[in-house]
């Protein structure tokens, strides 16, 4: 892939126009008709040589294909400052160090596997399930704060603060530092946005955010080594199992950043998309209120119907034949997971929200090697949040539909969700 800082964007073709329209914030509220058009041609070559893949069968096949690499993160490159010492010596070193901090979502096996294994050793069943009561308490507190109001802004009041509180506690990041890392985290999550990846300003901002959050994490890790606590970061930083490799300090910092950023950026969308969908389907909201045991089905259907992550990119390590096309070696490949989850070839009536469908095999958490590490935690948070919202908000209804959306097309979700209520139970 050419260095996006230098490259002139090539002119748009028909196919590019379609994908460009999906990226266009104007279509953020309802990209699904465009995704349906994408699926008419499962594999589309774009003007810049990248490929967009959109059907369930093709994406499924590619997610398990070992020729698709996740190592497609563009290298960090600091812009010229005019100071030769910086431009020729210091910044290239800093760039190389920053680039060496590749989180495991941008790594292939065997490195990916050993890193992930170390993370999973900390992300234990006990630790994850142990969050249950805490999540419930946080949700109740956050809902309680809305008492006396006739309007709830879901993102601000619950969807954002809940996952932040939970991931901070699990990792051992002081929650009061949230104001510091919020903007860094949001900035860094643009690494998944194709538009932002091409944008020079965004990439500059990413470098700055990375430097800041990496400094923050290094300090925190030092603290965890000095005074270990019962949290994931302490566990990772003081790895004691001599039979497995321990993480390098680069990997430790990048893993900590990844878990912090991924731990809330996506869950925010899942909770907000979830409530939005239930409010648009009041019958389902009522059923969930009356029977909270429906939650697991509701959540899986949400992950299919309004997934928090709409696409991921990969790089082809070899020529790959799929759906009648050949993706050539070296090409960047965009897997439109959200289009696959609405593929009528795979799901009957895909545009209907139906938690009772027999077979919800979605790509809401991805599939294959890079399946979302945090999926079990997200399920706990979303279940408790949605059930309590349904049970405690009196006569909730959308104050604005569609809501305003955050800029991201890959990490897609409302910027705010205004809900009118008659009170709190």
């Amino acid at each position, binding site marked *: 892939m050419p260095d996006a800082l230098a490259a002139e964007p090539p002119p748009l073709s028909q196919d590019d126009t379609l994908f460009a329209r999906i990226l266009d914030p104007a279509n953020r509220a309802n990209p699904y008709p465009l995704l349906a058009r994408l699926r008419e041609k499962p594999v589309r070559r774009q003007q810049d040589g990248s490929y967009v893949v959109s059907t369930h069968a093709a994406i499924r096949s590619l997610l398990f294909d070992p020729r698709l690499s996740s190592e497609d993160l563009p290298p960090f490159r600091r812009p010229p400052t005019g100071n030769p010492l910086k431009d020729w010596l210091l910044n290239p070193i800093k760039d190389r160090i920053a680039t060496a901090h590749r989180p495991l979502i941008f790594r292939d096996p065997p490195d990916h596997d050993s890193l992930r*294994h170390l993370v999973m050793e900390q992300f234990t*069943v*006990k630790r*994850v*399930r142990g969050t249950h009561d805490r999540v419930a308490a946080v949700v109740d507190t956050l809902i309680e704060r809305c008492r006396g109001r006739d309007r709830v802004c879901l993102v601000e009041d619950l969807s954002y603060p809940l996952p932040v509180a939970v991931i901070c506690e699990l990792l051992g990041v002081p929650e009061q530092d949230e104001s510091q890392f919020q903007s860094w985290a949001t900035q860094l999550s643009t690494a998944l946005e194709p538009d932002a990846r091409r944008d020079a300003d965004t990439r500059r901002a990413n470098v700055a955010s990375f430097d800041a959050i990496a400094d923050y994490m290094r300090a925190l890790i030092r603290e965890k080594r000095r005074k270990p606590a019962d949290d994931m970061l302490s566990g990772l930083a003081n790895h004691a199992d001599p039979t497995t490799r321990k993480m390098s300090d680069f990997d430790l910092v990048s893993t900590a950043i990844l878990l912090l950023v991924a731990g809330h950026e996506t869950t925010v969308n899942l909770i907000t998309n979830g409530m939005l969908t239930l409010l648009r389907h009041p019958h389902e909201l009522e059923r969930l209120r009356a029977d909270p*045991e429906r939650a*697991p*089905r509701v*959540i*899986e259907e949400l992950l299919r119907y309004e997934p928090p992550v709409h696409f991921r990119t990969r790089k082809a390590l070899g020529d790959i034949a799929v759906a009648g096309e050949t993706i050539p070696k070296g090409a960047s490949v965009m897997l439109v997971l959200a289009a696959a989850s609405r593929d009528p070839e795979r799901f009957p009536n895909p545009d209907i929200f139906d938690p009772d469908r027999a*077979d*919800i*095999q979605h790509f809401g*958490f991805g*599939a294959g090697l890079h*399946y979302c590490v945090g*999926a*079990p935690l997200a*399920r706990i948070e979303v279940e408790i949040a949605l059930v309590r919202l349904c049970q405690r908000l009196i006569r909730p209804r959308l104050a604005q539909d569609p809501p305003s959306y955050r800029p991201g097309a890959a990490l897609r979700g409302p910027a705010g969700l205004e809900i009118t209520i008659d009170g709190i139970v």
Partner: protein
Amino acid sequence: MRVVVDLNRCQGYAQCCYAAPESFVLRGHEILFYDPAPPAAKRGEIARAVQACPVRAISVEGLDAVTSPEVETGS
């Protein structure tokens, strides 16, 4: 309840282990050990495991209220 997992389908995502830790355990990198006869009290957890499985490999009898046990010896 009676549970069977299609271990040809299973790829060791371990989502069931988080949903129902007393009924599903992952050993080594990807060996799933499960209880084929979990007690009725685990119904909620087993239901969560079934739904969370990314490859839909878990089949259960007795999950949705009462389905009559069919098998009787003799005729």
